[in-house]
């Protein structure tokens, strides 16, 4: 900046700041984008990868057959334990199933691996607990709605 255009520079600087002020003003006149969280729910898309649920078939029984495909697919061992009952074949159903939300990456690989479409990640994103044990879900807490009901 040479001496000769010092004045010009000062004027241009002031103008640039005024321009900025106009931008903030126009934004002040735009509608707000904030969502007023607990009172105003954010729409969560259907495909959201949130809490894991177990689906039930038309007969109301679990679809999961404890085939361990999800356990093998899980990259972070968030599904440490799966046990089925003793019945053989298609009648076999999960008896024990543990999902550790504190380890889960929510990558959806388990859902992809499941050959029976028995588990799903849901739109529920608020998975909180007062201690770590609260984040370990057993089958009772993983039960989703039966077929036909909405999630």
């Amino acid at each position, binding site marked *: 900046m040479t001496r000769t255009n010092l004045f010009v520079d000062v004027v241009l*600087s002031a103008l640039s700041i005024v321009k*900025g002020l106009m931008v903030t003003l126009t934004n002040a006149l735009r509608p707000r984008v904030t969502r007023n969280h607990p009172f105003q729910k954010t729409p*969560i898309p259907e495909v959201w990868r949130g809490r894991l649920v177990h689906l039930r078939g038309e007969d109301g029984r679990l679809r999961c057959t404890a085939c361990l495909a999800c356990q093998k697919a899980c990259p972070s061992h968030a599904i440490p334990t799966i046990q089925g009952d003793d019945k053989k074949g298609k009648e076999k159903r999960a008896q024990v199933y543990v999902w550790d939300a504190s380890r889960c990456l929510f990558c959806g*690989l388990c859902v992809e691996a499941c050959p029976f479409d028995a588990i799903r990640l849901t739109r529920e994103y608020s998975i909180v607990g007062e201690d770590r044990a609260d984040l370990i879900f057993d089958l009772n807490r993983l039960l989703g709605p039966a077929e036909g009901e909405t999630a």
Partner: protein
Amino acid sequence: MTTGLTPTEHITLNMGPQHPSTHGVLRLELELEGEVIVACRPIIGYLHRGIEKMAEARTYPQVLPYTDRLDYLSSSSNNMAYVQAVEKLLGLEVPERAKYLRVISLELNRIASHLVFLATFANDLGATTVFLYGMRERELIMDLFSMWAGARLTQSWIRIGGVGADIPDGFVDQALAFCRLMPKRLDEYDRILTGNRIFRARTEGVGILPPELGVNYGASGPTLRGSGVEFDVRRAEPYEVYGDLDFEVVTRPTCDCMGRYLVRMQEMRQSVRILEQCLKRLPEGEVRAKVPRVIRPPEGEAYGRVESPRGEFACYVVSDGSPRPARVRFRAPSFYHLSVLPRMLQGWKVGDAVAILGSIDIVLGEVDR
């Protein structure tokens, strides 16, 4: 002050690991003379999770979600680099539609990442309002990702063989609407920030990175292009459909913070251009190639490189024929930018340190891995 007449005290200032402007958990040991930086030592490793080692104990598909956690601001490019390497090992051909969707995902992520850069850079320089604007526009991209992938940040949606799922109805329209909105918002940023005299005074001529120095230190991406070196992996070694797309590789010759900033701002416009082309040309078809349930690539090694928002992000995978990779190594651009940082900081003031650190746009997730 700097003369021999009055010896001033050298202060060692620990900037970080808890500091508003270190963008994560970085510690910079600054040696100060008054406010002038005499020496700087970046200390890293606060976010080390051993992802490369963990990958050796995971199957090929299982590694993928971990790559999200490297450069968490643009998980797509991490996924892409890894997936590219694995697909090279497998010799897998990806359906055309998947390729386009991948580019859409990559470019959306690039804009999102550059918006975070803009936001934090402005915030570092004291323009808090632009921070909010950047985050506001980024939210639109997050909405797009969550309706497609069901996740905002760690999508892992570029999968081996294609993408996780096809885009839902309405995605194209919403994305096109975003493409129409974004240039207007970019003009707004230009008015409030780029043209602002104070902003220019803070960035022009500050934090010079000479092109040779940048190349020698392995810098890449906008950081290097801000120094006038025209190097972009998308152009140098086109992957997916980048070869067919019409876009410019933006460079700036000024080598300063302003140059790096402008490159990113222009790149966002280019990304919008790429997005529009992809959305309009999107072919019909499958989005995922047939991939065996257990992936056992033949013995060998492969190198996948992509242009992440930060620079050349690459992944080197060695296979020993088992379902688990023998070795996975990530080349994180931020790491190289961080290693050249001490050279760029010397002689500048604390306030500039913040600007320079912001202008190289590092993400500690990929530095520490």
